[in-house]
């Protein structure tokens, strides 16, 4: 016998925060398909395909190293890896949070027609970001070895910074996605903001180069910590203390919870915006 007791009752009071988790679990195949779609369409559009994911940061690294390693009086090798590791985690954050918004806009016309748990689009963007990050870490390790820098043992802890940054990124992506159907200028504005944010994060320059006052100010930038944490696991091996690590994890979790709350609170109204 089929189960036809499955019931939808619009008057049932339920927390959208919790209900969304439950719905999303039932739609796990959708998340997988969204990730596949992003990766396949990217692959189909360019000749280099997946390889582009790996080559892009390498090119940026090469250019920056040529220009800046002298300027910062940094040994070329260390600087190259410093930039590359920073770019990997920064790109993961920037591209994922942007993609979350893009996916939400793509889904727009669809949300007016069929029911889908709407967090699936941001979660799918996160999944795509993770796949791309893993694909980019491989050439990083190769370059590192080629330059004669053996990655530290902390490399085994790589999932930790990725998890923390992922939570933070998903929270930001969800909060932005909740506005994107209402206002057209959210995405371009965020892109400008990202460009500024990039320079306030020690991706292409070493923190030590900054005057102490400015460095203290940058501590308020969450991405400062996540970039440094990622870099310490793959490059320097000097992890922050347990207290600092816990704080970074809890902060990521808090941003995720806040983003999820902001997004699901109004999720019911999104279909009215199409």
């Amino acid at each position, binding site marked *: 016998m089929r189960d036809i*007791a499955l019931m*939808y009752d619009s*008057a049932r009071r339920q927390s959208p925060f919790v209900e969304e988790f439950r719905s999303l679990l039932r739609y796990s195949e959708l998340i997988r*398909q969204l990730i596949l779609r992003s990766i396949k369409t990217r692959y189909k559009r360019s000749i280099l395909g997946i390889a582009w994911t790996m080559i892009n940061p390498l090119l940026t690294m090469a250019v920056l190293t040529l220009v800046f390693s002298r300027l910062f009086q940094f040994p070329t090798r260390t600087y190259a890896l410093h930039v590359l590791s920073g770019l990997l985690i920064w790109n993961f954050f920037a591209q994922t949070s942007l993609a979350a918004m893009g996916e939400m806009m793509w889904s727009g016309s669809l949300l007016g027609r069929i029911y889908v748990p709407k967090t699936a689009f941001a979660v799918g963007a996160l999944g795509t970001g993770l796949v791309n990050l893993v694909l980019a870490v491989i050439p990083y390790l190769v370059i590192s070895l080629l330059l004669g820098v053996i990655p530290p043992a902390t490399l085994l802890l790589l999932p930790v910074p990725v998890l923390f940054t992922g939570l933070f990124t998903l929270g930001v992506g969800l909060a932005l996605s909740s506005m994107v159907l*209402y206002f057209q200028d959210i995405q371009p504005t965020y892109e400008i903001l990202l460009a500024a944010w990039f320079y306030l994060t020690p991706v292409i320059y070493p923190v030590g180069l900054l005057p102490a006052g400015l460095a203290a100010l940058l501590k308020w930038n969450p991405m400062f910590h996540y970039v440094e944490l990622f870099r310490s696991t793959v490059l320097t091996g000097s992890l922050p203390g347990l207290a600092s690590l816990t704080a970074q994890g809890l902060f990521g979790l808090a941003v995720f919870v806040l983003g999820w709350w902001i997004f699901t609170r109004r999720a019911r109204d999104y279909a009215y915006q199409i």
Partner: protein
Amino acid sequence: MLIKSDQPVEKAVRSRAAAMVALEGVSVRYRLPIERVPTFKEFAIRWFQRRLSYRDLWALREVSFEVEPGEILGVVGPNGAGKSTLLKVIARVLHPSQGRVVTRGSIAPILELGGGFHPELTGRENVYLFGSLLGRTRSEMDAGFEEVVDFAELWDFIDAPLRTYSSGMQARLAFAVATAEFADVILVDEVLAVGDLRFQEKCLHRMNGYSDQGATILFVSHNPGTIERMCERALWLSNGTVKDLGSSDRVINAYTSALA
């Protein structure tokens, strides 16, 4: 047929637990800004100046009715009457602004198809993408794949990108995916108009088949002949309210003579 609106909602729904779809005084309000505020900047300025004003558009007003298991209910009404809105509120796409919607069993919405496809992906990849948007699992989609392509008659094109499909071919693929599985409640919104005549017949045939297996169907169509043929009962929507609900012969007669 209509449940009096002064009856407590709780009790009315429970007393008819057998209905597959029950609406209780359902109203849907679209909120339209009088001037469009497309940017956040403008929104912030206006909010600050308290100059945000909205016009309310009630697409459905106090709609109450029930659909019994296995029934095919036809829905008619002029453009803008609220037919599509009605199906959306049942499909859980729109949350009712007022009132209550209760449905039982699985729901297959076949509403103005077209979205959900990606032009760069192949037909095959799109079948899986669209299926997952409808909440299906991979094993369900694997099991039904051949049947979907058979029904859409698109074996020759299934590995070509979707942008190379004609709109009729896309509609056929979408319809084939959406109806690939039996559902307890099926909502059909004028989608049959896109395919050619032979395909329309095929779709109606499939609807009838599901109906014989016990599916409950809500069927929106601008074609009175189809409604009379398919449905025993029909609902006439006008300006967001139920103008008539009863045997399809009578309602269609009244509706067509009102148009004349």
